[in-house]
Structures are given as structure tokens and as C-alpha cells.
């Protein structure tokens, strides 16, 4: 499992401070200006695969309600960034929030190995409850047989039709019906699915140790929790991360699994356009399996001013630097350099071991031609040799913090840093690579890698 929570948090109280209305208590997560659902899905997928380095997924399913592209499959970029085999089916399950839990349940019911990634960016009109309660994030579950960390015991789904939350294809913001409606219909749907799932798993309710409840309707979640009697309801992250919609089911399962004791039965209840319940039992392999625990990411955050949040979401448009915007990336060039652009794969001179980023045919150390091996570098850490701050260059969110990176084991790459500020960076700091969207021109997103400071204790 992998859960990805972006670096930035919006203090909900700041909304009222700026607009005089809206807001609330706690925080919500905010994707950086250079993140979208595809890049966050890559980050979650990397974490999941790092926990199972030998896995070779047969399928990659990517669920989101905020796809970076329509028509074009978004999962293919995730597939490329994760260096999955070309024989792996990569497809989107897009549009609706329920596609997250739907993809996960379908994978659990399928043969072979499926990597299910889901990601979401949640916005509402400024000051709305939707803006306040939403969150950004991603999750990934590697579903298959063998040495699993959580065994799937069974599940059930109940489907119903009503218009409780909706957004047209061209709308930027979600709208919702009076929340008392959801409060009245969801708990019954949830109970039906709950009973059916227990039956499918041949379990009694008192066998369940913990339950996570996902609902964008907080009142419905509260009622559902009450109806389950004494079962421990885990933190649904609404006070810290917010509801990450399509990604939230995976995020809650990841958080629940990383905190589970071996043998515990864990339940997930998702209340979206019906109800879905999944039951798992944590295995002996669960201990220490989380590569970067959700709880760790929830804790290691940085506050973002509300005005910056509004700018990043396009709610207000700031004056850009007076520099030309970058041109659109060429599809033909990007296809030729796919390994570099999407997977951060360089080349290594077989004789001298010199690393070339980007990959080169002729070595700078000995001029040997075509005597290199591929060098995947996305998961290699680096040290900042020196850095600078560029207040003149074009950036969707200036200034650019830029560093010369020397990679562990050799190799250098000058690289933009992200999720940081100029005064937080020091020569000698350790960084890791992260997949980001550099910009968008003519509707074409330019994906590439940046570096971010390693969370304390991860080096």
C-alpha cells in the first residue's frame, strides 16, 4: 500500500481571515502548483512498489475525479514513470469519486496482480464547505497473491441513484444537495453493504477490530459510525488532510493497515453513490511494511497561505514574470526520450561508471560510443552540492529554487527543487526525486522530475 499526502496544508481558519466567511477548524492538504492527479498517483504508486520491489503488475488502474486529460489515458504517464512492463494494461477509471473504491474492489476480485492508484484534487468555490472539507492526495494498492500485508476477506456493494454531489464536465467546482438528505439515505445503504460483506466473509461484527468510514458527507459518516456499535472507528483524516474523494478509500486503508497489529480484522466503509464495504485481515507481514507512513506525511507538513492556495487553484490570477512562457513539449521528442522524461532514467558508462543525466550515447569521460547501461535514478537520493534562487526565470510560482545535485553512488544533475522555500535549503541537504508537472502549454502537460528535501529521519 502507499498513501501520498502533499506537503502543504491550508489552515481552514485562514479562509475566514481572508474572506470573512467560510473556513473551520483544522487543516486540509493542498497539492503543490506543480502537482496534479497524475503526478500524485505516481508518488503513491512509487511508495507501494517500493514496499514490493519484485512485483510485476499485470494491470494498472488509475481512478480520479480530476483527470489531467480527457480522451488521453492518464494511467500511461503513471505506467511510464513507474517503469512498468509494456505488456501491462494501463487504464483510467475516471470521472466519479466512486471509481476509487470500485477499482480497488474490482482488483480484489480479479486474478493476477493489479496496481490500483487513485488520486484527487478537491476544490470548491472560495469559502464553500466543499473547499474547506476537501483535500488533495493519492493512494496506491498493489493487489495480488503471495506474501500480502492484508488479506482480503470479502466485500459487498450497494448501488443507488440520487444527485447528492455533482459537477459537469466543464465545471471547476463541485456542488452538493442539502447534507441532511445524504445523512438520511447513506447510513441505511451502509448497513446493507455492511451486513452483506460480513456474510460474504463469514464473519460476525464483533470480529472486526477497526473500521474506517469514508464519506464526503460528515453527518452521514457520523450516523454510520454510531450504527456500528462499539467497533473502533479510526481517524478519517478529515481534521488534517480533508476528504481526498477518489483517493480517500485507499488512503484510509493504507493508514489503517500501517497501524494494524497482525491478525486484526479491518473494515472499510465507503458511502458514495451507494455503499461499499471491504474486509481485510492484517498478516504477519504488516509490521514495518509501510515505506512512508501516512501518519508521518500528515505530521510533516508546511502551512500555505490561503491567497497562495487561491492562486495555485486558478481562483485568482497573479502577474507572471515578464519572461517568455516555455513552449509545449514535442510529443515526438518526448516519446523518444520517454525513459528520461517520465522515469528519470539516465545512462552509465560501462567502463568508467560515469553517470549521464540525461542519457547519452557518447561518454564524457572517455568518448566511448554506445557503451552504456540504462541507469534508473528516480529512487536514488542525492546531496545538494550548491544551490541558487532565481527570481527572474519563468515559473508558475516564482521564485525557482535550483540546486546542483550529486547522487549517492556518483552522478550529477542540476535540478529544480520543490516543496521548499529559499531559506530552508542548505548545501549538504539530502533530497529525493519527485515526479511533477512543470507546466502546461496548448493543453499539453509537461511532466518531469524535480527534487525535494528528504523528510527528517528518511536519509
Amino acid at each position: 500500500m502507499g498513501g501520498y499526502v502533499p506537503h502543504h496544508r491550508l489552515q481552514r481558519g485562514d479562509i475566514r481571515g481572508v474572506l470573512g466567511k467560510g473556513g473551520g477548524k483544522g487543516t486540509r492538504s493542498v497539492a503543490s502548483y506543480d502537482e496534479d492527479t497524475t503526478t500524485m498517483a505516481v508518488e503513491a504508486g512509487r511508495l507501494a512498489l517500493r514496499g514490493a520491489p519484485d512485483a510485476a503488475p499485470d494491470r494498472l488502474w488509475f481512478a480520479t475525479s480530476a483527470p489531467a486529460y480527457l480522451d488521453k489515458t492518464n494511467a500511461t504517464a503513471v505506467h511510464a514513470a513507474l517503469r512498468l512492463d509494456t505488456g501491462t494494461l494501463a487504464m483510467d477509471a475516471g470521472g466519479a469519486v466512486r471509481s476509487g473504491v470500485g477499482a480497488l474492489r474490482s482488483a480484489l476480485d480479479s486474478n493476477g496482480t493489479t496496481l490500483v492508484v487513485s488520486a484527487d484534487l478537491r476544490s470548491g468555490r472560495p469559502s464553500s464547505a466543499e473547499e474547506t472539507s476537501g483535500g488533495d492526495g493519492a493512494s496506491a494498492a498493489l493487489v495480488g497473491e503471495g506474501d500480502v500485508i492484508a488479506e482480503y476477506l470479502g466485500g459487498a456493494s450497494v448501488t443507488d441513484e440520487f444527485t447528492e454531489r455533482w459537477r459537469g464536465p466543464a465545471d471547476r467546482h463541485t456542488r452538493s444537495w442539502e447534507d441532511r438528505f445524504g445523512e438520511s439515505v447513506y447510513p441505511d445503504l451502509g448497513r446493507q453493504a455492511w451486513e452483506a460483506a460480513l456474510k460474504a466473509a463469514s464473519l460476525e461484527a464483533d470480529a472486526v477490530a477497526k473500521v474506517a468510514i469514508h464519506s464526503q458527507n460528515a453527518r452521514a459518516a457520523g450516523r454510520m459510525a454510531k450504527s456500528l456499535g462499539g467497533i473502533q472507528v479510526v481517524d478519517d483524516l478529515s481534521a488534517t488532510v480533508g476528504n481526498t474523494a477518489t483517493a480517500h478509500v485507499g488512503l484510509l486503508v493504507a493508514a489503517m493497515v500501517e497501524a494494524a497489529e497482525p491478525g486484526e480484522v479491518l473494515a472499510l466503509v465507503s458511502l458514495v453513490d451507494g455503499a461499499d464495504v471491504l474486509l481485510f485481515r492484517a498478516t504477519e507481514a504488516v509490521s514495518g511494511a509501510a515505506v512512508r507512513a501516512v501518519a508521518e506525511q500528515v505530521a510533516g507538513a508546511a502551512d500555505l497561505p490561503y491567497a497562495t492556495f487561491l492562486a495555485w487553484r486558478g481562483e485568482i490570477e497573479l502577474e507572471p514574470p515578464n519572461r517568455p512562457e516555455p513552449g509545449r513539449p514535442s510529443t515526438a521528442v518526448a516519446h523518444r526520450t520517454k525513459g528520461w522524461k517520465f522515469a528519470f532514467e539516465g545512462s552509465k558508462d560501462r567502463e568508467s561508471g560515469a553517470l549521464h543525466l540525461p542519457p547519452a550515447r557518447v561518454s564524457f569521460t572517455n568518448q566511448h560510443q554506445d557503451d552504456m547501461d540504462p541507469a534508473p535514478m528516480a529512487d536514488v537520493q542525492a546531496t545538494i552540492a550548491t544551490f541558487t534562487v532565481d527570481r527572474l526565470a519563468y515559473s508558475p510560482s516564482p521564485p525557482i529554487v535550483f540546486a546542483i545535485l550529486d547522487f549517492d553512488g556518483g552522478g550529477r544533475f542540476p535540478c529544480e527543487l520543490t516543496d521548499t522555500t529559499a531559506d530552508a535549503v542548505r548545501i549538504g541537504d539530502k533530497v529525493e526525486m519527485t515526479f511533477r508537472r512543470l507546466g502546461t502549454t496548448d493543453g499539453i502537460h509537461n511532466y518531469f522530475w524535480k527534487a525535494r528535501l528528504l523528510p527528517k529521519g528518511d536519509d
Partner: protein
Amino acid sequence: MGSHGIKDQVAIIGMGCTRFGERWDTGTDDMLIEASNEAYESAGITPDDVDAYWLGTAMSGTSGMDLAGPLKLVDKPVSLVQNFCATGSEALRQACYAVAAGAYDVAMAIGVEKVKDGGYQGLSGAAKIPTDGTGRTLTAAAMFSMVLPAYAKRYGVDQDELRMVVAKIAEKNHYNGARNERAQFRRETSAESICAMPAVAGQLSVFDCAGVADGSAAAIVCRAEDARNYTDKPLYVKGLGFVAGTKSGNLDPAYDYTTFPEAARAAADAYAQAGITDPRSQLAMAEVHDCFTPTELVLMEDLGFAERGMAWKEVLAGTFDLGGDLPVNPDGGLKSFGHPVGASGLRMHFENWLQLRGEAPDERRITTADRGLGLVHNLGGYPGEMLSFVSILGTELG
């Protein structure tokens, strides 16, 4: 194999240089006409007397017809050359070799750039080659700003002191430029005021960066033995060094941003061609590529004007001031002229033309001209991936 040079085979016999600046009322064609007219007049010839032309422009033209058209050069071979910020020097280099080869009797190198029509800050109009979008979008200022912390660390210099040292370089160049009617910026500026300005890239302020200007400059060359048919005071080409880097500095963890190896190698070749063994004492002056203040600091060492790690002390000692041991950028440099990419290299040669021939105005005339040798250093690119040009010019044969 070998780099043999063309020492004393070719001479500059005429030059022209426009005023550099925000020439809102003047187009590319106008500046080409202005610079070439001055060069023709200086050599005492007409356009017809020039057998071949090399036009240097990085972003203001795409073919030789961008010169042949406005000047109406009938039936002449006109080449367009482009080599980043060393474009103007590259045009001169090609013209010199064509004459040395005996292909032409007289050739003109002319550089031009019309930068201010773009509407953006800084240099922008570089060719849009389709890419995969993974290239750096950092400004040159930010790339060169990385020299300062690296130099401070390597030589144990206090960062704030080093910051003041490079501001002194700007102060010197503005002092010189204030005495040059062709310069864009003609006001003296103190190092203290530059240090007090907000940083735009690393520690650098706007006044650590070359400005953006329009301009054009031209040189006419002929075989050395014919030079005195045109002028009593020709400048002989003693050496032309040029290195295009392999863009490896940013791949190689051994590179530390305190030196520009391409500049050092180009200088070594030019010195060998010209027979220079001690540039610090043999040269009367140098025009170097001060695109950013740390660039000039490092160049003082790469060109052999100061020992490694000592340039900052020499700057403070005034070695490179107008009245110093070795005046550097007596015309004010890129700092005062701005940087019309295609023109800058030839503008640097123009200052050698004035100073070595004793024609610079009194208020900025160097006192070392009797050494008879001058240097031009012109670079393009960034630390770690750079091309570099060095020429040596002299007033006497032999």
C-alpha cells in the same frame, strides 16, 4: 594535427560600433547600416571593395540576406553565423580565416542584435527547437550566481566580502562606461549601493548582470601585407582561440563552478599562437565577457591575469582598473554596454581598436597601450557548459 593559428597573416583595417542601448527608434537594418558605414569610412573603402561578409546574429536574422538586403550588397557571399553570446567574435574568426586562406582580399565581420523589440526582460528570442520539455528554464543570472558560494568555499573567502568584491567589478566597469559615449549606462555606481539592492538570482542584484541593449559593430579585415594600403595603424591578428565545451560540467561531480575550463583552454591556445607567455605583463588591456560580475572574477584567473584563488584580492587592489596594472574592460564592458548578443564580441574588438591605436578619449585612455597587445574574451553558455573565444590583437608585426 595541430592548432597553428594565423599570426600576422590578417589585419583589421577598419571598425565601426553603434551606440548601444534601448534603440526604440532604430531597427536591425538601421544599426547594420550605421555600423558598416563607420567601418567602411574607417578603412577608407566602399561596400564594393569588400569581397565577402560574415553576419553574426543569434536572434535577429536567419540568413545572409538579412545583411545583403538592407545594405544592397550585389553579388556578394554573405554568411550568417551563430554561436551563442560569442556570435560576434565567431563572425570575425570566420572572416579572418577566409582572408588567411587567400579566398578573399577583404572581408567584413558584422554583428547585430535587436533585443528590445521582444518585450521581455532579459535575453529571450532564442530559437524554439522542439524538445521533450525537460531542459532547464533557469536564467543565466542564476546559473552564474552559483560561482560565488563555490568560490567562497574553495578559497575560504567570506561570502559577504566576496559579494562586495564582485560589486567592485561592477563599480569599475560602470566607472569606465560613464566615460564612453557609446555605452548604454553612463552613470557611475558604487559597490556599496549595488550590495544594498535586492537579490534577483542567488546573491546577485540586477546591477551584477549585464543589461539588455540593441547594438551593432563591424570589422574589416585584409591580408596583413596589404594593411598599410588602408591605414597607418592596422591591428594584426595574433591569435584566435576557440573551444566549444562538451556540456559535461553539469554531469561531472568533479566540476566545482570556480573556473571555466573552456575559457582557460581557449586562452592557452590563443597565447600559444601569439607567443604570449605572461599575459599579465605582456597585455596592454583586455576586454572580457562580464555578463555577470562573478564571471569577470573567475575569468581573471582562467585567462592567467591572477593566480588561482587570488583574483578577488587583485580586484580589491585595483589591478584591473583603468589606471591599474592590466586594465580590464576599459570601455565599460557588458555591464555598461548591455549585451546585444551578435554585436558584443565585435564591440570588444572595437575598444582594442581605439585603445591600442591611441584613439580612445582622454578620460578613459589606458596608460599601458605601449605594450601593443590586447585581448578579447567572449563566451556563450553557462558554467559547466560553455563555449569560449579568445583573440589577441597587436599593433606590430612579429
